[in-house]
Every structure is written in C-alpha cells, then in structure tokens.
C-alpha cells in the first residue's frame, strides 16, 4: 500500500510527430485516478501537470520515466527547442523510457511524413537503428495505433511495483504482446471452420481470408483486454490492421493479399503447407449451423 507521502514516480510525456491519439487513449484508463496517486506528471500534453513544456525544454530537471509519443523527427521543435535535444537529455536521466504508440516504437504512420529522417526512438521499422540505440536497455515499446490505455497503465504499475518488465525481441512487454489479437476474437469458430465473411456488416464469418484481417499475425491483446471496456475492431466487424507491428501501416488495408487465391501470409508461425492442408479439409465440410445467421432480426419472432 503506497502512502501518499511516498515518492511518486515523475513522468515526462514528450511528443515527437504525433496525432495525440496515445495521449487521448490514455485518458480512457479506467483507473486513471488511482494511478495518479502513484505517479506524477511533470508534463503531459492534456492533463494539468507540474511544469509547462517550456520549463521542461530548459533541460534543468530530471524524470524517473520518459514517455515518448509520436515519430522521431530530428527537425521537430516544441516550445522553441529541438525535441531531439530534450529526448537525449531526458533519456539519459530517466530510469525507464517508454515509447507509446507505433510511431514512437517503430516509426509508424508519421515515419512516412519524412521516410529518410523519421523513425521510432529505438527501432526504425524492424531495424534497431533509432536515435536512442544507446539506451536500448531502458526502452520499453508499447506499440499500437493508438496504444491501449491499459497497456500503458499496467506497464506503469509494474514499474511502480518494481516488478521486472519482461520484453520480447521488439522490446514489447510479453505480458501484453505475447498473445495475438486473434486470441479471443468472437469470430474464432468461423476461422476454425474457414467460413469466410462474404460481406462487411455481419457478425458471422471470419475476416481473415477476404477482408484483410491481420489478427492471426499481429501481437496484442485487443480481444482479451477489450477496447473502452466493451469491444474490439474484429468483434465489431472491422479487420485488424496489424497496428502493433513494425510494418504498420501496410497498403490495401481492407483486402487480403492473395496469390492465386492463396493468402500470402499464413497465421504467425504456421507453415504454409500446414495452413493450406487444414484449410482444404475444413473448407470441404459444410457445417449448417455455421452457415446460418446467429440472429435474424427480420424474421425471428
């Protein structure tokens, strides 16, 4: 039990080239109030904080945790100071550096604003060649576009609790990113039996084969820790766009890329042969229950 007098971890939320989506997503954290009893924002783009950005830009103080949101852009200035300057100064001082969102983790969408110069803080897509390469040991990537508030909330809690944050090869916490977005999707049975959705707007059918769903290839917990406490993209019929991965955004996002009707990408780690064999067998059988709508609002009474 933390007493309020105990040292609250000081956090500086610094932004690169961003849309602010991660900052807004964080505000949806259900236990924000409780978390703010254990941490304190020196600066946050939305919440009232101890200092203004202009103060932080003077680089006179230090923080326990540096949170960076947005793509790294060496030419970017905030509060009349190069973000690069603030980034390097606070990265050195901080005990932990958290990249929130895919832009800060890998470059994401705003790497495309200037592909030659922009990147994540540690990774430039899959390569570990970002500006903070030297601080690799301190960096946690919470990729996602935007990051789920609980992914940040639980990581901060682990840090507060001094619990080691075990990371995968891309510096993402295994607690949150070892499962696939596919796990927990309500359409799983349709995936199992290869019943593809023919159209959008139906709760039945799997979105993998035609609608471009990347969930079986994407690390994340969207279908286990639901979004906004209630839902997820795939549960509401939108294909997963693979936003936690280093190749986000891809192109032709609502379509599955096929070569001769065969999906170019099989589920993660599943050999193409295994996938095709299983699919061939599943597609042979017609399970009547799975080919009918679950609820027929027009005709059910």
């Amino acid at each position, binding site marked *: 039990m933390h007493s309020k007098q105990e040292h609250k971890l000081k956090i500086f939320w610094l932004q690169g080239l*961003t849309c602010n989506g991660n900052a807004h997503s964080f505000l949806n954290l259900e236990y924000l109030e409780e978390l703010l009893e254990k941490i304190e924002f020196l600066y946050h783009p939305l919440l009232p904080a101890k200092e203004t950005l202009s103060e932080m830009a003077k680089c006179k103080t230090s923080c326990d945790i540096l949170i960076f949101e947005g793509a790294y852009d060496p030419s970017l200035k905030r509060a009349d100071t190069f973000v690069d300057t603030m980034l390097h100064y606070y990265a050195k001082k901080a005990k932990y550096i958290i990249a929130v969102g895919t832009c800060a983790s890998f470059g994401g*969408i705003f790497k495309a604003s200037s592909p030659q110069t922009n990147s994540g803080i540690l990774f430039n897509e899959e390569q570990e060649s970002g500006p903070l390469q030297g601080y690799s040991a301190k960096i946690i990537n919470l990729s996602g576009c935007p990051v789920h508030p609980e992914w940040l909330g639980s990581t901060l809690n682990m840090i507060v609790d001094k619990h080691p944050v075990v990371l995968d090869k891309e510096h993402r916490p295994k607690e949150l990113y070892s499962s696939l977005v596919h796990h927990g999707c309500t359409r799983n049975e349709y995936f199992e039996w290869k019943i593809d959705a023919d159209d959008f707007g139906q709760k039945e059918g799997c979105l993998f084969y035609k609608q471009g769903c990347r969930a079986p290839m994407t690390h994340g917990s969207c279908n286990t820790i639901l979004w906004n406490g209630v839902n997820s993209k795939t549960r509401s019929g939108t294909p997963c766009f693979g936003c936690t991965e280093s190749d986000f955004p891809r192109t032709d996002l609502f379509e599955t890329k096929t070569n001769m009707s065969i999906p170019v990408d099989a589920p993660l780690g599943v050999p193409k042969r295994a996938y095709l064999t299983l699919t061939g067998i599943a597609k042979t059988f017609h399970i009547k229950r799975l080919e009918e709508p679950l609820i027929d609002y027009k005709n059910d009474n």
Partner: protein
Amino acid sequence: MITKTIIEQIEGEASLYFDMKENVVDFVTIAFPHFRGIEKMLEGKSALDALVITPRVCGICGHSHLLASVRAIEDAYKKSGFPIEITQKALKIREVTLILEIIQNHFKWIYLVLVPHLKELSNSQEFFNTPLKGAYGASLATKILAIFAGQWPHSSYMIPGGITSDFTYMDLTKAKILLEKLSRYFESETLGVSLEKFLSFDSCKEFTALEGNFAQIEQLLISLQMHKKGFAHDRFMILGDHQFSRVTKMKGTKFFQALPKYVMTQDTYAVNEKSYAKNALYKNSFYETGPLARCMAKEFKLIKNMHRRFKDSAYTRVVARFYETAYLLISCKKLLEEIDISEKSCVRSAPLKNIAGRGEGVVEAPRGPLIHRVKLENGKITSYEIITPTQWNISSGTQEKSSPAQKAMVGLSVKEAAFVFKTFDVCSVCTTH
C-alpha cells in the same frame, strides 16, 4: 513591439505574435508548426486506406475524419454512376458515434482547457479544478461510441455502404443505458439542472438560480468581463449536414445559402514564423465555426438571447459549448431510439476499381465543418485535400482582413488574449495535418 507567446496543450502548440500598443493587443498573427503531409501520403493508395489513415490526422476528432472520408468516397461512387443506398440504421449509427465524439471533446475542453485556464487567468485559489471529471465524462462517451465502432480512438468502422458493425439489441440497450448515465453525470456534475430544463432557458438570467460547475464558470466569466471581450466578426458558417445541424451561412442573425464549393484555402499571413496551416475562407471572407455557429443556426432561444445582449463574445462562445453538449446528449438519445435493428449494417457496393472522379465529404466536427475532397482513378487516390475547422477560426490574416480569433484578441492583454484564443477550442494537429 512584437512579443511571441507559445500556446501549449491545444492538441499541439501554436505561436502567437502579438503586436502590442499601450499594453493591449493591436494585432496578432498565428503560426502553427509541425507538418505531417497526410494529404500527400494518401496519393497512390487505395481509397479504403484513407479510412485508416485520415483518423490519424487527429487524436481527439479522428472519428469526424473517418466520417468525412467515407462520405467523400461514397460521393465519388455516386458521381461515377454507382450511387450507394445506405440503410437508415447505418446512417443513424454514424451520426450517433459522431455526436458522441463531439460530446467527448466538449467534456475535455471544459475540464482540461477552460477550467484550468480560467482559474489561472482569474488567479483564484478557491476556484475548482477537477480535470479528471473531463477524462471520466469523455471516457464514458467514447465507451458508448465503442459499442458500435469497436474502439476509440482510431476506429475505421465506417466503410462505403454503411458500417462494419452488426450489433445486437443487447448492444443497443447497453448504449442507451450508458447514455443515460452520461447525461445524469453532466446534469449533476456540471450543469446543476436537468438537460431539458437547461435547454428550455429563455435567457442567461436563468443561470443565477443554478449551482455547480457551470454556474461557477459562468459567474467567473462575467466577473472577468468576458461578455464584453472576445468579439469576432459575428459571422457563422455551418456546412456539415446532420440531424443536429443546419447547413447555412449567417451574418449576425441573418441566414444565407452556404455551398461547400465556395470554400477555399489560402496561405496564412504569418510574417514572423513559417506556418504550416492554411487559412479557410468562404467566398474570400472569414467565418466562425463550431458550437456557437451551430447553436446560432438552430436559433436556440437561450443562445439568441445571449447573442442579442452579448453578441459573439467569449462568454457567449463558451456557454454555447455547454449548451451544445446538453443538446447533443438529447439528440443522441433520440437517434438511438429510432434505430431499427433489423436493417442491414452494410449494403453491397460496386467494386472499387470502377470508381473514378471526384468526391467530397463534409462533416460537422467538434470545432466546425470538416471537408475531405478526394480524386480517384480506378479506385486509387490521385489527390486528397483536407480542410479542418480550426483553419476557419484560427486563420492568420492581415490586419485589414483578420480571422475570427485574430479579431477576438484585439484590445486585450496578452493573458486575456491567450484565454480568448482558447475559447475557440483550438486543434493544432488538425490545422496542419
């Protein structure tokens, strides 16, 4: 003498260059830094990719960009000879989620922008400051939105033909219940009176009977003389067609026709620093957009009364945002009650590769009209233009022809001007995209 002030926490930042004369603002120019080139990024991509990329223009109003995007694409379908007949259910749910994003925005603006800055401006120790109320109200509004759209921020659940979500009656019921909860929260925590009563007020004299956050804010605004400050051009523009809005142009209380084709952009007048924003004008004139404009167009009694007494002062502008929040909560409830769940969520449309030509989508986003203009060839984007509401309000024009925000800041101290600037609810990321 030109002084520079950087305004932070406006979904980014902006630099205000004040030209002071006798300690008050004589003229001010505005520069927005940070360019991301999203319009250029979209060139060569499939039209549907815009539904994923444009919401990332902005973290607080990305959902409005989604609707503008899908409307632009559907308009291109229509102009190519393949019109899509969307169901009423899909149209209404799109409206519902748009409205909820606006409500979320206003909750945040009230408790994260207005209150802290009002407190700072007035130097009042006793004045309340409860930012988490804004976060809570906003998170409840976006929770309801997510029931239909899958998530907030950054949903892409609107696609040509309708919506991807095939929600159940149970989902709809839950949404209605949570909306009630949100409405009660706004009533008890902010307004101090029921939504219906607030919306029925004839004049601001009725505020004196109220207690609570709104009453305290209103009293402080009056004591800071905000009803005599912050006047813009008293001209308003509403271009997004929704149940909750009326498409029109207004000069004072007079109505005129408004057509999106007369909207144009021009380079900003920002001599002290390069600005990546562009001014937005209608037939070469500046207009105010957003909640005050929308409330004026709907001729709400209370707003008309306030406008008669205090024109488009900062006071009227701020109160309009509260009024709009109450109005939208009621509108949202009505829309949910009209949903016929047996209708399809998404109808089939022609293959995208058949679509060529221009399309335009116009939406009332939290701060005013948001316009997306797309040009397609074989279903691929050849050009994409985005004009955001902050470009209207926070244009940077010359002294002879100034924008609403520029005019509103004239004659004030720097501190007051910075406050009045914020009453326009500025979104830096949208302005520059």
